[in-house]
């Protein structure tokens, strides 16, 4: 996103294109809104896209690379570089992306890092801990993306993809997915 400010017409145009490329698993939001496009650079004969994968085993990684290549093909040779560090965090999902997730029926993740700390700096200590969870609903309320009620319960820690878990709203009775904070 740094390149947004660099005022280069070609790169701006390329960013616009990427902002239209949907995530293959969660097509409600784009790759840019998901926060996995870390950089876009001009090369001698095209562009270089720096991507940070979401989960280590995300099966969409190859599909995403392919989509990026195809969507940017008019900019010349497309080089895709995978950058592991700093690790992707759900804090990088943009505010617009969060709103689109909610509208799509997926409760967006809460913040992983506190205000003031730098998101995903890769050096924040992760102490060994076992979260005592007497009940998912009490310890970590997740608002229903449809009716907004915090009166929800977790049905399953893992969902249709590695990044989501399954919930149900006890107010409007609708099931929904929750994008896990990572």
């Amino acid at each position, binding site marked *: 996103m740094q390149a947004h400010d660099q005022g280069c017409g070609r790169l701006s145009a390329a960013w616009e294109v990427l902002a239209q490329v949907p995530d293959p698993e969660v097509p409600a939001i784009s790759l840019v809104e998901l926060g996995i496009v870390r950089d876009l650079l001009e090369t001698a004969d095209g562009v270089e896209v720096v991507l940070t994968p979401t*989960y*280590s*085993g*995300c*099966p969409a990684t190859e599909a995403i690379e392919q989509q990026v290549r195809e969507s940017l093909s008019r900019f010349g040779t497309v080089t895709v570089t995978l950058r*592991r*560090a*700093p*690790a*992707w*965090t759900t804090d990088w999902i943009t505010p617009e992306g969060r709103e689109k997730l909610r509208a799509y029926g997926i409760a967006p993740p809460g913040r992983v890092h506190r205000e003031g700390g730098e998101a995903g700096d*890769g*050096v924040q200590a*992760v*102490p*060994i*801990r*076992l*979260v005592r*969870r007497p009940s998912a609903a009490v310890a970590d309320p997740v608002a229903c993306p449809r009716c907004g009620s915090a009166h929800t319960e977790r*049905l*399953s*820690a*893992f*969902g*249709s*993809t*590695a990044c989501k878990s*399954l919930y149900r709203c006890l107010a409007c009775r609708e099931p929904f997915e929750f994008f*896990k904070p*990572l």
Partner: protein
Amino acid sequence: MNAEVKMLAPVVTDAGAQYVLRIGDACLVLSHRLSEWCGHAPMLEEDLALGNIALDLLGQARALLTRAGQLQAASEAQAPGHRQAADEDQLAYLREERHFLNPVLMELPRGDFAFTQLRNLMAACWLLSLWDRLRDSSDAEVAAIAAKAVKEVQYHQQHAADWVVRLGDGTEESTRRMQAALTQLWPYVGELFASDAVDAAAVASGLGPAWSELRDDWDAAMAAVLADAGLPRPQDTPHVYAGRQGVHSEHMGHMLATMQHLQRTYPGGVW
């Protein structure tokens, strides 16, 4: 899948590469065992959970196997006739049983649901402590893999802990099964904390911690869950398995036969 897979068993001899490969193989083999639950878990939600955990572990394994191949190639660079780095596929599909370096705990047949969840908890507590330290690895690639994996494994640990408590503190039958799993699995724990020359080299180079350093964290995390589950901690047993040196149980060959036969029957086959 690399279309030009060479039918040549890659052998990893460099100490640093072996250190990375031990962890990568632990993730790969446990991932394979968990994938065996696909379509067999007691409920749909667990099918999803075990499949997702297997996928995370597979992703971690791919990254580590790739790095191990690179480290091995770098160590051979000065030697005459050195070859290209073995890639993740060659390391996963073309190595012989004796060249897999995972602890034996990971290769044991999946057992019943109690056995699977208890082993997942043991593995997650161990990996969490290991990844946490590997974030400071002198190898930038290993540190980056660890920084990502440490976040994923916390979810695995929480999930397994929930089940161990639920089954351990459950019905007469679930308690009996969890107790049986504890008795069966505990003798394999010692290997997770045994250190040797490969560890010593990793400590010296800053690549990673000696596995013996992980014991206190692991004991504390396991004690907390076992207490909640109302399960007594078994006595440690003196025998230390040697999967890390390539000496495996009789189950490993059978598992590899399943895992590798397609690639060995149709070399270079791709989807």
